């Protein structure tokens, strides 16, 4: 092996990489927030809605969970213009991520809601808690606590999967790296470093979510 490493080329373009990474983070975070709204609505409708609606949501969840994200991206990217909505690659990527996260989120939230046994609610009512108090302290808070780790993992999976949206030329971290390596002819250096950046982002978000979990759920429990 007589290869001269040139990692300084990567360093020269740190600004572009940072911008790509920032778009990756923004896309993932936005997709998670909107996706959670979709997931909450779907989980609620699946638990309490009329049966045609329940079937529709079940079909949506199964369809998304059993097909590749990349194919979902292609379908959404090509179907939006067909529906008369003209959007850029970034918006199409965001839409695909929302649709994807919504399905996984629905399953996670459903599990959380089902984890609250009816006896808990009866007990809260017997203690004289109002309906709202019961919902807040006995249903919502413990359910969120149960599913929080699963949601955090799903967010990180979504962030890593977002690298695939480079296939429709949304200019997130992977797409930026692709164009940089092709102009500098330094594929190893760029892909090696960017793999490290993704790893750091995954570890960083895991730490942040761990911190949020501790502050919101553990500390309150102690006091």
């Amino acid at each position, binding site marked *: 092996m007589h290869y001269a490493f040139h990692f300084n080329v990567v360093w020269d373009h740190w600004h572009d990489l940072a911008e790509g990474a920032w778009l990756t983070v923004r896309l993932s975070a936005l997709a998670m927030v909107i996706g959670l709204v979709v997931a909450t609505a779907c989980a609620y409708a699946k638990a309490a809605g009329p049966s045609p609606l329940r079937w529709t949501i079940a079909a949506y969840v199964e369809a998304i969970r059993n097909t*590749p994200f990349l*194919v979902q991206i*292609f379908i959404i990217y*090509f179907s939006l213009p067909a529906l008369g909505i003209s959007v850029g690659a970034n918006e199409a990527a965001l839409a695909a991520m929302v649709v994807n996260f919504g399905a996984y989120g629905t399953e996670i939230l459903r599990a959380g809601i089902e984890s609250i046994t009816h006896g808990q609610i009866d007990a809260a009512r017997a203690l004289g808690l109002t309906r709202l108090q019961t919902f807040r302290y006995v249903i919502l808070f413990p359910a969120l606590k149960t599913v929080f780790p699963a949601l955090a993992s799903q967010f990180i999976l979504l962030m*890593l999967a977002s690298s695939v949206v480079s296939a429709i030329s949304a200019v997130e971290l992977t797409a930026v790296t692709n164009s940089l390596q092709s102009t500098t002819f330094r*594929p*190893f250096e760029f892909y090696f470093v960017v793999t490290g950046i*993704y790893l750091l982002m995954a570890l960083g978000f895991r730490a942040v979510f761990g911190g949020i979990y501790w502050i919101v759920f553990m500390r309150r429990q102690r006091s």
Partner: protein
Amino acid sequence: MNRSFGLPEFHYILVGLEWTVLLSLIAFLGGSAVGFVIAILRTTQSRVLRLLTAGYIQLFQGTPVLMQLFVLYYGLPVLFDMQVDAWPAAALAFTLYASAFLGEIWRGSIQAIPRTQWEASACLSLGYLQQLRFVILPQAMRISIPPTVGFLVQLVKGTSIAAIIGFVELTRAGQLIVNVTFQPMLVYPIVAALYFVVCWPLSLLSRYLERRIDAALGVKRHL
């Protein structure tokens, strides 16, 4: 004039499906072999081995498969000044990817076996390998089957990413047909449906096995 989507095009996509299944199988078999070793090392007494294997798992679970694929396909060949085809690069990348996930799943299964089983078999003067072979692994294997089947779904979907480096599996075959027929709204849903036909039965099987094992172990599970 454009070609329209007919039987020859559908046949081309079906051949793509064969490659998807083949790539998944190779990755699963190779990943099982490596993943088994990882799972065993991850549960040994040796701190160094545990840390090393934990790092290995974190590396592959904390970075996008697409990046792993790019490093293998575009990055490493440059270092050794050689040409690599998409097929071996994809096979190797997905084998490594599968090994990390299967290693983590099987580690969990081994650790789910109560310590007392190790202690009891040690009391019967079984050596470490005998404890594994006759007491721990037979029990761990049973719990590991549902999540392993579940991972197969993830693996089949994941192999779609090989399309991005130009390996002609199901998704890439779909892309190529779209390029000649200009009918993305027909072709991509067909591609998605074919993935669904492979993945959905596996998902159902995984859920069914999980319920059966939970019932046998008396576990009530929500996630």
